[in-house]
Each structure stands twice: as C-alpha cells, then as structure tokens.
C-alpha cells in the first residue's frame, strides 16, 4: 500500500496545477446564492468527464472545498449565506461585521477552512486505505447490506420523513433496473426504446435532479424586478464601503483573525473530527456538520464565552467553518472505500469514476489506488490554496451575492442540457434531463428526497450484482444473508439506524407536548 501511496503522491504532483483553478471556481460559485457545490459541479460535468480521471476527480474535490469556503464571504459581509451550510457563519460572522471587525471575521473563516481541509485530508488519507482493507474482506452478501445501509441512512436523514425517503430510494433502485440485466444480459423495461437498452443515463438523472430541478424551483420563487435589484446592489455597494470605512485593519485584520484560530487548537481539533465523522455519514452534509460543531463548542465554552454566541463569537465562527471543510475529507472516505456517495457532490464524483471505468468500491485501492490517493493528497494542496486564494478574494467575492438570477438561471439550464448530453451524445438524454428536472422539482416541493432517488439509481446496478451474487453463494437461499457474523452485525446496525432516530423523535415529541401542557397549566393557574 505504501508504494501506491507514493505513486499517488507523484500522480497528484503532476496534476497539482488543477487545484488552484478548482479552488477559485469553487469560491466564486460558492459566493453566488443558489449555486451550491453540487450545482457548480453539474455545470462542469462535461469538462470533468473530458479530463483524465485523476484530473476530473481532483478538480471536483477542489471545487467542493472552494465552494464550502466561498459561501462564507457573503455570509460574513452581507448576512447572505451562499448555502445552508454557511448559516452559522452568517449568525456569528455578520455581528462581527457590524462591530467593524469584518477582516478579522474573514481571517477566521479563511484559516478555519484551510485547517479543516488539511485535517480532513490527513485523517482521510490515514483512514481510507484501512477501511478499504476491511471492506475488501466483505463478500457480496455484506456489500449488498452496506449499500442498503447507505440508502436507509439517507432516507432516514431526508427532511420529509422515513417513508418518503425510502420511497424515493426504492424508485431510484427501480429506475436502475431499466436496460440490460447485468447477470443474464436480458433487456428489461426498455419498452422497445433503443435509447433505453443501456439503461437510463445516470448522468441525465443526476443533472436533472440536481441542476435542472433547481432552475425550475428558482423560477417558481418570486423575483425582484430590475429596479429592486438595482436598489439592492446600490445598498450592497454602500454597505461594502461602510465595511471598508469601519474596518481599519484590512489585511492585518485577516492575519490577526487567522492567528486567533491557530491559538485555539482544541476548538479546531474537536470541530474537524466531528465534521469528518458527519461527512462520512451518507446524506448529512455541511449544514449538519457546522450546526453540530457549533453546538458542541457551545457546550465546551466557558460562561463568558457562551454569552457571545449569536453575537459574533469567534469560537462559534471557527467551529462552523472548520467542520464545513473537514466534512469534505470525511465524505470522500465512503465514496472511495465503499463506493457509496454520501452527498450529491460525491455522487457526481462517482459518475466521473464510473465514466472512466475506475473500480467502484474497496477494490479501487488495489486496482486504481494511485488515482484514489492522488485525490486524497490533493486535499492538502486545496488547504494551502484556500489560504492563499481566499486571502486575495475575501474582499471581492462577497459582491457575487448580488449577481442576478436572471443571468444565472438561463446559463445553468443550458449547461445542464449539455451536461446530460455529454455522456452518450443522445438528444434523448437531454429530454431525460428535463423529465427528471420536473420530477425533482415536484419532489422538492413536496418534501421527497432527490438525493435518495439519485443514489438509488446510481447504486442500483451495484446492489443488484451483489444481491444476486450473494444468492448464488448461498445456493439460491436467502439464509446466507443472516448467517455470516459480519452480515448479522450490519443488519443490527441497519435496524438501529431505523429504530434509534424514530425513538429519539418520539421522545422529543413527547417532551415538547408535556412542556406545552405544563406551560398551559401554569398559564391557567396564573389566571
């Protein structure tokens, strides 16, 4: 494994030039509200497919890291979070701006993000090969349960509830059956449509559900007219000038902010480990990571420090930004070791891997190990460039928060269609992008998880392969899925992942209702 680790490092070095480009694209995209990291990757999908696999994957990882930092800039300066993951940054960063400490807040964000990315990289590079080693010992029986586990966790976490999440995931699995049967080579559910003989293009499903559906959702929102937008821009420029006038520290402030982070090693160590763990959980994402790290620091904080939370706490800001970026490293681990993407962004990287014929699952480290390690190494370079590029862009990138949706939406929609077309070069796939865009829009409006459907569609073929191979191992008996010790442990974990959140939810509901009752009784007794 050490040889592959070194080969991966040299492979990364020869492709390191792509990291700053990715970080810069990510930062700019992250600063634009409505352009999430996954959306920006969807737009660049044709380029990522065109590039060699290592470059495509490194570019994707660098964009992800850059976007997680870029969305902090408008959050701090204008109180406009670039995405849900930076809402904590806005809560703590904007009060600092109002207190005339913008550059210090930006310095904290930049350094925290860089440290988060670095620690995420270090731990993931240490953990991934070991997890892959364990996963290599899994038979198809265990692998099929692991895939099911990933789907159930995503369904559990999805906002609409377990039934909606599971329904979305199973619809994804059903869509994956369209095309040629992987075991017997028979056509299934093709309805004699030639374009469906190879199955529904995963790229079309991905681009439709993540990209085009977002365009349709944004179209549905009420839009400001050009006069309102001009006024908003004017207000933003005035605010930016005010920030410059109030904040007399400039670059020094960024430096002092960065130093404040360095002086708090326990904060960034705790937050980065938590971010990493959350990143490895399928479906959790940046918002969960930052929120958990924030509440963790609130628990650890002294009484004095606790009072500052919500009013411009540096510790709160640090924890959220460190967790946001260490999460990127965490989310790479299940993707590279088990072939299970934990988020929409990782699903896009999986599609890139699949397109280039890389082994998906634990064998990636033995068959294409240098590519996997090159991606993991690239996180260190991303951490350095986050620091350098971030310091340069900090005072300019937040202005992108005022880019009008009138320019973004048409460009995104056209690029989505091209992204869907790029894989097979069928116009039929463009139609599928629109169809899945409409389905995704309907799902989002009614609380169904688009990520669960997407992952079902992506993992469906793999799941079927493992499941049928498992049956063959057990001579067509299902008992084999309940006989092996590792399989039994995985079943228990699967059952717990369904039961524990349900129990916690029920307990929380009971607590809330009993509190309401006691409040009501108090009100009645007080007259």
């Amino acid at each position: 494994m050490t040889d592959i680790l070194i080969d991966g490092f040299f492979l990364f070095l020869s492709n390191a030039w792509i990291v700053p480009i990715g970080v810069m694209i990510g930062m700019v995209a992250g600063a634009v509200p409505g352009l999430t990291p996954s959306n920006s990757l969807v737009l660049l999908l044709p380029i990522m497919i065109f590039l060699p696999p290592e470059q495509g994957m490194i570019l994707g990882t660098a964009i992800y890291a850059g976007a997680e930092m870029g969305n902090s800039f408008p959050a701090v300066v204008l109180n406009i979070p670039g995405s849900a993951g930076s809402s904590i940054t806005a809560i703590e960063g904007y009060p600092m701006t109002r207190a005339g400490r913008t550059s210090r807040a930006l310095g904290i964000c930049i350094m925290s993000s860089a440290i988060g990315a670095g620690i995420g990289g270090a731990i993931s590079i240490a953990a991934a090969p070991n997890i892959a080693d364990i996963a290599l010992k899994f038979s198809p029986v265990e692998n099929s349960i692991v895939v099911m586990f990933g789907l159930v966790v995503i369904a559990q976490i999805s906002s609409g509830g377990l039934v909606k999440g599971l329904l979305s995931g199973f619809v994804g699995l059903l869509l994956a059956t369209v095309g040629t049967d992987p075991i017997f080579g028979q056509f299934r559910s093709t309805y004699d449509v030639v374009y469906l003989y190879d199955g529904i293009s995963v790229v079309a499903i991905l681009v439709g559900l993540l990209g085009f559906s977002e365009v349709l959702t944004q179209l549905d929102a009420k839009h400001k007219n050009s006069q309102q937008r001009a006024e908003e821009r004017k207000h933003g420029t005035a605010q930016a000038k005010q920030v410059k006038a109030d904040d007399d520290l400039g670059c020094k402030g960024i430096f002092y902010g960065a130093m404040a982070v360095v002086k708090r090693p326990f904060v960034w160590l705790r937050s980065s480990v938590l971010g990493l763990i959350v990143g490895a959980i399928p479906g959790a994402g940046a918002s969960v990571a930052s929120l958990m790290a924030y509440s963790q620091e609130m628990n650890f904080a002294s009484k004095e420090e606790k009072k500052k939370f919500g009013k411009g706490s540096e510790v709160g800001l640090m924890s959220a930004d460190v967790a946001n970026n260490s999460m990127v490293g965490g989310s790479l681990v299940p993707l590279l070791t088990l072939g299970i993407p934990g988020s929409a962004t990782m699903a896009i990287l999986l599609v890139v891997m699949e397109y280039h014929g890389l082994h998906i699952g634990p064998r990636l480290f033995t068959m294409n190990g240098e590519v996997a390690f090159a991606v993991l190494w690239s996180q260190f370079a991303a951490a350095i460039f986050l620091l350098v590029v971030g310091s340069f862009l900090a005072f300019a990138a937040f202005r992108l928060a005022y880019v009008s949706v009138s320019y973004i939406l048409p460009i995104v929609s056209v690029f989505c269609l091209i992204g869907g077309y790029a894989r097979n070069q069928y116009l039929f796939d463009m139609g599928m992008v629109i169809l899945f865009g409409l389905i995704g829009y309907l799902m989002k409006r009614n609380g169904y998880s688009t990520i669960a459907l997407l992952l079902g569609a992506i993992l469906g073929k793999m799941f079927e392969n493992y499941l049928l191979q498992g049956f063959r191992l057990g001579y067509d008996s299902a008992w084999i899925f309940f006989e092996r010790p590792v399989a039994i442990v995985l079943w228990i974990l699967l059952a717990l992942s369904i039961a524990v959140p349900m129990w916690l939810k029920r307990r929380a509901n009971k607590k809330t209702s009993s509190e309401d009752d006691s409040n009501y009784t108090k009100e009645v007794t007080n007259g």
Partner: protein
Amino acid sequence: MQQENKQQNPLIERLLFPLIAAGLSVSMLVEQFTGSYRDESKYYVLAIAIPVLVLALIDIIKNIRATKPKSSSRTQTQSVPLMDRVYVRPLIAGAVALTGIYFMEDLGFPIVFSILITVIMRLTGEKSPYKMGGVIVASLLVIHFGFVQIIGLDLPYGLLEFE
C-alpha cells in the same frame, strides 16, 4: 420547503409523486411479466417494485389523513395572477425546453438555446434585450469554443450547418 409543507400543498399535488411511483412500478411489472424475458431476470424487478407499491400506498394514506379542512385559500389562489401561480413558470420553461430538444436536430443548438435563454430570462422578469443578447452570445461562444471545438461534443447545428 418546510414552510411550504406547513402551508400544505393541495392534496392532488402531494399525491402526484407516490402515484407516479406506483404507476411506474406497475407498468414495469406488466412489461416484465408479459414480455418473453427469462424468469430469473424479472424477479429482481418484482422484489423492488413491491416495496415501491407498498411505500407509495402508505404515503398516499398518510397524505390523505394529513389533509386539513379547506379554508379560504381558494379565493386567495383565484386572485393571484396566472404567471405568479406555482407550477406555471417551471412548466412553461420545461415545455419550451422539451419542444426545443424535439426540433434541435433541424433547428440546431444555437437557435434552440437562444430561444430557451430568452424565455427563461423573461420568466425571471428580465426585459432588457441587450442583457438577453449578451447572455445568449456569451453562452453560445462558450458552448461553441469550449464544448464543441475543444471537448468535441457533437451538438447539432441544424439550419446553421454549413458544409
């Protein structure tokens, strides 16, 4: 989104996705079991389609049971202008895009994408023809030089194809 759910979308809208899921699974099962496929192949589809049907049914029942009695929302929806109603703008964009793709082979991507960009910009409230022209020209230049010339995507030029 949560806020939208709290406001509760109309029942028919909430039932649409589970109904689509149920319809899809039934149609796939019919296609499998009436076709001349091998036995082993279709049972996997059956194993996935049955949970889809069961989950869709549970979801439909949950949605029907969760329906609140009608309030004065009907009069409110009637007073909303057509273009501001939910689904109208996304459906227009989707329909234009689908029609454009249907005719793309003949018209070519520059014409289809120009129409699509114009429609979407109009739907977002943009009226300036200069801004629309700017976005169209910039997008087409990126597509032509970036995706067609460098990456080698074989996008149809249709009417603008010169031999």
